[in-house]
Structure formats: structure tokens, C-alpha cells
């Protein structure tokens, strides 16, 4: 693995390999007084975030630090980015400084792909290699989120293949949904999307999933339900009439959560809009894996950095 740009870079074996490494790293750290592995000592990981984010950036930073990498955080404001430097120049500059890995989040879909193409072109000339990790590009993908969701599902359900996973809400604008649909399909799960027609992407029928119109009808058959964030700026547009009506149709209320089978898991990539997307009692209830997602996020990102910078373990 040279870069991690899209979940479609991973076949089932590669994805499972990452999940296994994540589990091993988690075990290795369990009960340690000093949570530090020497694995990436002397390596430099730069996070470059062009969008506000707390959990993903911090998660990558902790992942790097727990493996003894030197981590440097660059944010778009307060850097040369705000002086009009192009993404290309910024990336090549960081690469020239000797970054072993650049973790990038950017509002433009495909930004990570472009970065990788520029860096690879540059590497051919300079002989250096910088790995790019996509930490969310526009409405395209968020591969480490899908991996941490898969790790959480595997942990809770014991397996992913053959499981039925519902993804509910704003699929159209969701990079999390895209990465999850394709990764879960690769891992053999059956994916069901439930969303108002205005929030379903064109051609979703050709994705490896099914579209179900009625959330209540789907819930009893699901092993897990993943609630998507509805971005505030969409709530007053033309996508749906009101937050109230959205909550009635697509929110995971306490009554609705009761339709899930006993073993089913509830996931949310955060940040949650409580009340509208998910009832507080459900978010904090026993089915909820929301905090497990967050803690698995660190281990998955450790695994990704490890595979990229140290090579996949034998």
C-alpha cells in the first residue's frame, strides 16, 4: 500500500489485514502504563487540515504519537495556505521537508488523489516517498472512518460478512457513506441505504447496495444501523422541508430503535445532532457504539500508518 486514498484501494484481504493489525495494536497497548510503541520512531507524520475537525485530526495525531512518530499539525488558517499558496505547492513543500506521511483533509473531492499524483511525480525526480492518507475529501471518501466503523462492527458482531448494515440519512453529501458502502460490500456485508430521495446520489442503484424507502420496515432486519450526520447548511435548503419532518421520517428515536433486533449495534460518525438524527437515550444507550468508534479510530489509524510507513506485517 503506497497511499490510502479510497477504500477501493483495498481488497478484502488488505482491509482485513488492517483490521487485524488494529486489533493487535489495541491488545498491545491494553494495560500498558506507558502507551507508546517504538514502531515509527524517527518518522514524520504531518496532518494538513483544510476543514475544521477535532476528532479526526486528534485521532491521527494520537495514533502517530503512540507509535513514536513525530507528528506536526498544519491547519489551513494561519499558514501559507491563507496567503494564497496552492495545494500543490504546500504539499510539495511538506514533502521536501521530509514528511514520511501527509494526512490531508480538504473540502474538494479528489484533493487527496491530486496530492498523491503531484507527490509521485515529484518522487520520480527526487527519489523521496511521501505517503498520502485521505482524511476526508469533499463529498467523496473518508476511508479511515469506514475502517474504524468496520473494526467496531467486527468487534461487536463478531463478523462482517453476511451481516446487514443500514446507512441512514444524507447519503448525497456524505463521504462517510461512500466509503462505508464500498468497504462493507468488499467485506461481504449487505448494505441498505435509507434516505429521502433528495439526499440519494444519482445512480446509487449501481452501487453495491440496496435502497430501502422505509426505515421502520428495514430496522427489524438490520444487524447494525449507521446514522449519518445532516450538515446544518442542508437543513434550510430544498432537500427536506424541516428538521422536524426529517426527524419523523429518518431520525432514530427511542421507539424506532426498539424495532432493531436485540443484538443490533447503533453507529454514528459524529458529531451528532441529538434529537434530530438520534435520540439521546439511543446515542447513550447500550446498543450505541459511538464511543467505541472513537477509540477504535486511534487503533485503525495506527494500523494505517504502520502499513504505509513500516510495510504490512507478515
Amino acid at each position: 500500500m503506497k497511499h490510502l486514498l479510497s477504500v477501493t484501494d483495498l481488497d478484502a484481504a488488505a482491509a482485513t489485514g488492517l483490521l487485524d493489525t488494529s486489533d493487535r495494536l489495541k491488545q498491545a497497548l491494553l494495560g500498558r502504563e506507558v502507551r507508546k510503541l517504538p514502531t515509527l520512531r524517527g518518522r514524520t507524520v504531518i496532518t494538513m487540515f483544510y476543514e475544521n475537525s477535532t476528532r479526526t485530526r486528534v485521532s491521527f495525531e494520537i495514533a502517530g504519537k503512540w507509535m513514536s512518530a513525530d507528528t506536526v499539525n498544519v491547519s489551513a488558517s494561519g499558514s501559507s495556505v491563507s496567503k494564497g499558496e496552492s495545494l500543490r505547492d504546500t504539499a510539495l513543500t511538506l514533502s521536501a521537508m521530509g514528511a514520511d506521511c501527509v494526512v490531508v483533509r480538504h473540502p474538494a473531492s479528489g484533493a487527496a488523489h491530486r496530492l498523491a499524483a503531484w507527490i509521485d511525480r515529484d518522487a520520480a525526480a527526487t527519489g523521496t516517498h511521501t505517503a498520502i492518507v485521505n482524511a476526508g475529501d469533499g463529498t467523496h471518501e473518508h476511508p479511515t472512518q469506514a475502517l474504524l466503523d468496520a473494526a467496531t462492527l467486527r468487534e461487536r458482531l463478531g463478523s462482517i460478512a453476511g451481516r446487514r448494515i443500514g446507512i441512514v440519512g444524507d447519503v448525497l453529501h456524505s463521504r462517510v457513506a461512500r466509503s462505508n458502502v464500498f468497504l462493507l460490500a468488499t467485506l461481504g456485508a449487505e448494505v441498505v441505504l435509507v434516505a429521502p430521495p433528495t439526499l440519494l446520489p444519482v445512480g446509487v442503484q449501481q452501487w453495491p447496495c440496496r435502497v430501502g424507502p422505509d426505515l421502520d420496515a428495514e430496522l427489524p432486519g438490520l444487524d447494525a444501523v449507521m446514522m449519518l450526520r445532516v450538515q446544518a447548511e442542508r437543513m434550510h435548503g430544498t432537500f427536506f422541508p424541516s428538521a422536524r419532518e426529517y426527524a419523523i421520517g429518518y431520525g432514530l428515536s427511542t421507539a424506532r430503535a426498539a424495532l432493531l433486533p436485540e443484538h443490533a449495534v447503533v453507529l454514528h460518525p459524529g458529531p451528532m445532532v441529538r434529537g434530530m438524527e438520534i435520540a439521546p437515550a439511543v446515542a447513550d444507550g447500550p446498543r450505541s457504539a459511538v464511543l467505541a468508534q472513537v477509540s477504535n479510530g486511534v487503533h485503525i489509524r495506527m494500523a494505517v500508518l504502520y502499513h504505509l510507513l513500516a510495510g504490512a506485517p507478515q
Partner: protein
Amino acid sequence: MSRPAIDPQKEHVNAPVDDLLIVGARPYGEDPVDLLVRGGVVAEMGAGLAERHDRDGGPGGGPRRLEADGLVLLPGFVDLHTHLREPGGEESETIETGSAAAALGGYTAVFAMPNTDPVADSAVVVEYVRRRGEEVGLVDVHPVGAVTVGLEGAKLAELGTMARSAARVRLFSDDGRCVNDPLVMRRALEYASALGVVIAQHAEDHRLTAGAQAHDGVVASRLGLAGWPATAEETVVARDCALAREAGAALHVCHVSSARTLAVLRAAKADGVRVSAEVTPHHLLLTDAALTAYDPVHKVNPPLRTAEDTAALRAALVDGTIDVVATDHAPHAAQYKDTEWAAARPGMLGLQTALSIVVHALVEPGLLDWRGVARVLSERPAAIGGLPDHGRPIAVGEPATFALVDPDGVWTVRGATLASRSANTPYEGMRLPATVAATVLRGRITARDGRVAHHDDGRGTP
């Protein structure tokens, strides 16, 4: 076959027009003839003309010869849709570099779109473009005037003043933006009808394409690129056809990109609406499948659509629903393209590749013959643009304004070697059929074998 390299003394665009003997050319790919050009006009034409001149030629050797054995002779191409970027965008293209690209592509006239800086919405700017085109002299540069002041879609520009100016503007467009307001479009068409000029619409309902980055289809939705739905084009064309019918005005639809628009055009034409339409070479060949690497060289407005669309557009060009091929030649300097997709400017080069794409997409599959190529690249665009001396029949008494095409030529596209100041060709590395052996504008050779005639390059060394 070897032809002499371009002669800088004789082939300066401003040199006096010598007599020219074109030997062995095949008009429209048909039987070979010789043509004697005198004073920029075809004086004699027929088989064996060259032999007779060789026999009768006195000590001076007779007229200069342009050996055209095996070459297809077509009327010089006319592009209704070119962005020359000057004034204001000289980092991407100038009237000089764009004229050179045009001459090398077989073009003898181009219509320069008004989205420059300043916008060509006044007589001053359109006269500048026209005059600079004449100074360069490689191709007739006809400025397109803006429909509205500053391309802002609100207030009509001085169409009459531009039409009556020295630039004699015949085509008006806000290209790059749509005249979205139906009332403004109605008034523009009504006003244009009395002037005898054409309104060329960039058909895109901006309310349906806010933030749009790519064709609203399977590829864009997987890539997370906001969709530009075909309905945004179809609905504006339908509306404009209704308005043009009511106003009795001439409407030209720029760069039709979607199969769905064609039904609207067919109905309007059958109904007697004065509507014409163009398609770009890239919409005839390329699809959104090219987008998966997010390389903005494929970013264009309207966007690349699907294989069903390219097939329907080819058929529509053949059956006349679409009148012409226009390049939408849109040079962009590297800094506007070597970016993330959303930040990149839309558009791609077209002048030097248009003929080859038409041959590749239509002639080779047997959809169009050379008469058809003459129709879509020269005759119809000249008629729509109101150019009396372009797109003419190849006959005695007609202007010697030609493209000489080697139908067996094959070349590999390299953006860096094209004449444009920019290199944003989507055909990089592609091997394409048909080369332009020579371009002749009113008896003057403007390009031959990949080199343009000497001309005023703006550096003070004419």
C-alpha cells in the same frame, strides 16, 4: 510526397498576394484538380491546369506551386466558438497565439468570445479585438459581443453600437454564463431581430447547477462531485426556442452536450424556429469516464457526459439537428488547471485537434464524408456567423480560402508543442488521424506543414 518548407519571404501574411497554383488537390476528397489562384480568388480550375502552365510558363517560371497531390481540399474552417483570452488573459492565450493555433488547425475565421477582461461589451473592446486580429493576419478574427453589460445578465449591452462598429459584430453571447433571466433573454432576442444579428446562448440554468463540477451521473456521484444535470441545458433551450419563435429572432445554441436537448431542437426546427446549434469535438468523443483520476484537464462546462450522449450528438450532427462543430477552444495557464478539481477553471484546447477528432469520431466510422466535414466545419458556421467570404463553394470566382487536409496523416498530440500559450489538451498522447497540410486565406498561405506564416507577433518584429 515532399513539399517545400515555408518560405519566410514569400509567406508573410502581409506580403503581396502572388499567384498560386495548387496542384493535384481533391476537392471534398473527390477527383483531383489543379487550381490557379489570382488576387486571392480562384481564377482557373480543372485537371491538367498545372501541365499547361508548365508548358506555357515563360522565363519567370510561372506561379508558385503548392503541391497538393492526394490532399483533400476543403473550404477553410470557421469556428463559431473560440476563447482567445485577449485582452486580460494573456497568460493563457493571446490573439496572436490563438490565431496561430487556428491557422494550424485549418481555420480561416474564428469568433472570439467576449469573456475577456475587460469584457467585450462595448465598441472599444470589440474593435480592439478585430484590429489586433487583422494585424496578426493569420485568420479572420470576428469578435463576439456580450449580450449584457459585464456578462452580468441584467442590462443589455450596446448591441447596435457593436454591430455598427468597425468590428461589425454579428454574433452576441454571454458565453461562460447563461442569460438566465427570461425577460432579459426575451428583450435581447427582440432587439437582435431588428439588427439582423444572432444571439448565441450558453444554455445552463444556473439555479440547477449551483456548485456543479461534473455531469450529474453515476461517475460524479461516486466521485463526490456535485452534479450538472442535463435538464439544466434542456430546459433553457426549450425556453429560448419559445422566446425566439415569438421574437422572430435567430438563436444559436452553444455547445450542446446532452442527448435530451436534441429532441427540443428537432421540434423547434420542425416548427420553423430560427435556431441553430453547435457541438464541440470533446462532446463528440470524450465521456465522464475520463474523470476518475480527478485531473482537471477534463473539467469543462458543459461537462463531459455519457457514451449515450456522444452517440446521440454524432447522429444529430449527421442528420442536421446540430448544424456545426465549434471548438470552445478554452486555453488555461497551468496554474488554473494544476489544482484540485473544484478550484480548476473549466475548458480545454480545441483549435488544433478539432479536424482530427471529427475525422476520428465521424469520418472513419463512415458517418460523415468530406462534403459533410465541409458543411459542419465551414459552410454552416460561416452562414450562421454571417461571413459572406468563408464557407464558399470550391469554384472559379470564389475566394481561395482553403484547408488542405492529408487524410492519411497520423499525429500524436502533445500539449507542449501546440501553438497555444496553454497546454490543456485532453488528448495528450493520443494518436489521431488527419493532419492539416496547408491553410490558405484569400490566396495567402497562413500555415503549412505545421508551421505558420511569418506575421506580426507583437514583439515589434513583423
